[in-house]
């Protein structure tokens, strides 16, 4: 297992190299540059030229790229143009909110998925199944900012169980503040995982070894736990993994509605401002996080299905 994990990290190197290259040059292809945008209406040609020189944007592109690579190798992600501070520091300030959202929403999604998918599969084509299908199809179609606002109106204003927005301090308060946003994300995830787990279960239920297990006189619950669920989980784990990777950088709307200081909104703001070092740094961080989630997904496969070996 340890060799496997190490191997995955070694594989990360070329991936990261490709990502830095693509990100660096794609950014430069966008119209606008940080100096022009930061100075805005107040900047004349001399101010812009002076700032470009201060930021090193007047150097040839290949030299700028080498400097950026040099920064990464020395463990630094450079300085944000907009904030004038170290990118690493800014990312670390925003990372906790994102990690909280990722973890909390994944837990809620799993807690929702397993019982509901089981129920749906067992009651196939009967009322509970149809109801679950209907509700989660509708939830998948609802824009998350709208769902977020509705939840705020109902669960924070009418019945004031949760705060309307914000982040809170300390574990308990944070859990309380993040319940609504995590729930909104989890509902989107769950609408995918419930469907995939349901069809997974139905597939497995039809296989010979389940019939055998039942014929041996195993209790239904035991058959489900031991034989059906682990085998049915594989496809849902990959759906969950893919969706969780999306949550890393894709929660801008949720962060905006609930005023959360996450990486998604920082990323979007940085793109609007063409804050090159910030965008490059965040892309590297996202890449590492996505690789870690994929790794966790693979490990989860192995745990769910002993036939899968990591080597």
């Amino acid at each position, binding site marked *: 297992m340890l060799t496997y994990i190490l191997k995955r990290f070694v594989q990360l190197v070329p991936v990261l190299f490709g990502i830095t290259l693509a990100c660096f040059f794609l950014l430069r292809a966008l119209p606008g540059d940080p100096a022009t945008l930061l100075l805005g209406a107040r900047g004349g040609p001399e101010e812009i030229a002076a700032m470009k020189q201060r930021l090193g944007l007047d150097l040839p592109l290949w030299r700028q790229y080498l400097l950026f690579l040099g920064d990464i190798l020395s463990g630094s992600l450079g300085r944000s143009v*907009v*904030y004038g501070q170290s990118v690493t520091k*800014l990312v670390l300030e925003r990372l906790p909110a994102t990690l909280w959202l990722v973890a909390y929403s994944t837990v809620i999604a799993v807690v929702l998925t397993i019982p509901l998918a089981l*129920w749906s599969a067992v009651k196939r084509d009967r009322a509970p199944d149809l109801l679950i299908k209907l509700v989660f199809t509708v939830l998948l179609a609802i824009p998350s900012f709208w769902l977020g606002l509705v939840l705020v109106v109902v669960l924070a204003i009418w019945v004031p169980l949760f705060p309307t*927005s914000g982040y809170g301090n300390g574990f308990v308060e944070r859990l*309380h503040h993040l319940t609504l946003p995590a729930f909104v994300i989890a509902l989107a995830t769950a609408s995918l995982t419930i469907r995939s787990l349901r069809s997974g279960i139905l597939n497995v239920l039809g296989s010979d070894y389940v019939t055998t297990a039942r014929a041996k006189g195993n209790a239904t*619950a035991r058959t489900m736990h031991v034989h059906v669920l682990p085998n049915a989980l594989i496809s849902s784990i990959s759906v969950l993994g893919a969706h969780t990777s999306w949550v890393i950088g894709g929660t801008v709307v949720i962060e905006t509605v609930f005023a959360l200081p996450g990486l998604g909104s920082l990323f979007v703001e940085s793109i609007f401002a063409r804050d090159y070092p910030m965008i490059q740094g965040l892309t590297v961080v996202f890449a590492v996080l996505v690789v870690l989630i994929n790794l966790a997904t693979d490990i989860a496969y192995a745990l769910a299905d002993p036939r899968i070996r990591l080597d």
Partner: protein
Amino acid sequence: MTTFRSMVSAAALALAVIGPALAVAPTSAFAQGVLKLAQTQDLVSLDPIATSDNPSIHAQLLIYDTLLRPSTDATKLEPGLAESWTVSEDGLTYTFKLRQAKFSDGAPVTAADVAFSLKRAGSDASNWKRFFAGIDAIETPDERTVVLKLKSVFTPLLNNLALFSSAILPQKAFEAAPDKFFEKPVGSGPFTVAAWNKGQGLSLKKNAHYWQAGKPSLDGAEILVLPEGNSRVLKLQAGEIDAALEIPLNQMQSLARSGAIKTEVANVLRTDFVLLNTKKKPFDDVRVRQALNYAIDKDGLVKALLYGAGKVANSPMPLMAYADPELKPYGHDVAKAKALLKEAGYADGFKTSLLVHSGRPLHRQLGQALQSALAQIGVTAEIRLVEGGTHWSTTKAGDYEMAVSYASSDTIDPDQMAGFLIVNPERANAYHTEWKSERVNELYAKERATRDGPERGAMFKEMIKLAHEGAPSIFLFYPGTSYAHRSNVSGFEVLPTGNFRLEDVKLK
């Protein structure tokens, strides 16, 4: 099967329990006398020479002082750290007498601090160097006197000294740790930084050494970031915040109805317009530009898009000092617009494009409205919806035909806006319309070298009239800025310069 049912119901029960159990956790408790104010964006930096975004500027104005500052009605300059000042007859020597004031760390504000801060603001490291270019030498004959020497008369200087970038910093504290200083800066303003949680907001606490006796009344302020308009309204209604900036205009009425919340509109120094690229046909013809101005029902736009919170514009210049209230805006006159187009040789209209910033909801709506209004005079405008950075660089590069845009002023003197909006060549070449009037350029040079008064005022009035006639843009409106506060807040006001003086706020 029963086991499954129990599994499912156990899970459902668990979920039902999680919510209320978490709800028991206390919501964060704030001390009495702390104002909670929500704005749309977080600030970027507290370094006054490195920023240009409003949240940063507004926060800086609460933490630092300037020598002078605009009065709350934006009509004149009033004493700040300087309790008095004189300008020599030849306009080349400015002498400031500092008041007895202290920084938030208890150190006195000295002439050396002023000299240091203004030198820094005029240095190469400063984004706003140009505002201080007129200063030739700074002298400090004693602890509380600062003398600025100029090479040539530069009237806008006093106004530039009232800008955020002219904030007075403590030299010693800054030089002790220049890299760390702006993380928890020291200033002589009414508030000082308690904490800045990036992306969440800025916590301010009262500066115990503030020079205005009895102020601030608040113990502190929490300036929170709530980007979403509906979230700000909901939080205000729930009583989680005391005041909020930029209330969605369509919610102003319903919000005021409850009685617990007061809604207000501030007349900020801003104009919205459609830039016309006069380098490109047919916008090189003044008749076409005037025709476009006649084609738009600006009153209708103010009513429909601003819900009445604004006035129709008569020129690109904001409604500020030396504006001419007598100057009538272009009326809505489709027949006249068509006649002018015909005269210019465009009887059948023409095809063009309209650049719109996708991140500005008001301008997106404007784009649609303008498109249909222009269609009535035969002008087919294709909307080019682009993101902010692209909008700015496209306009700057002159690679557009028409562009919805706006300008807002940091100072109460019209010099800065005139230089930006109607003078060519200057830093933006008449805001990238490339419109050029030799007379305007001449008046601009003259105005800067004339002592402030009616004579200088007449020069601005003439410049504004020339811009009105030359129509480098379709002048739309002067939009107000909406804000709201709960009825227990008194003294909260968004000023024409867009900032707010929290030292005047009281909580009941």
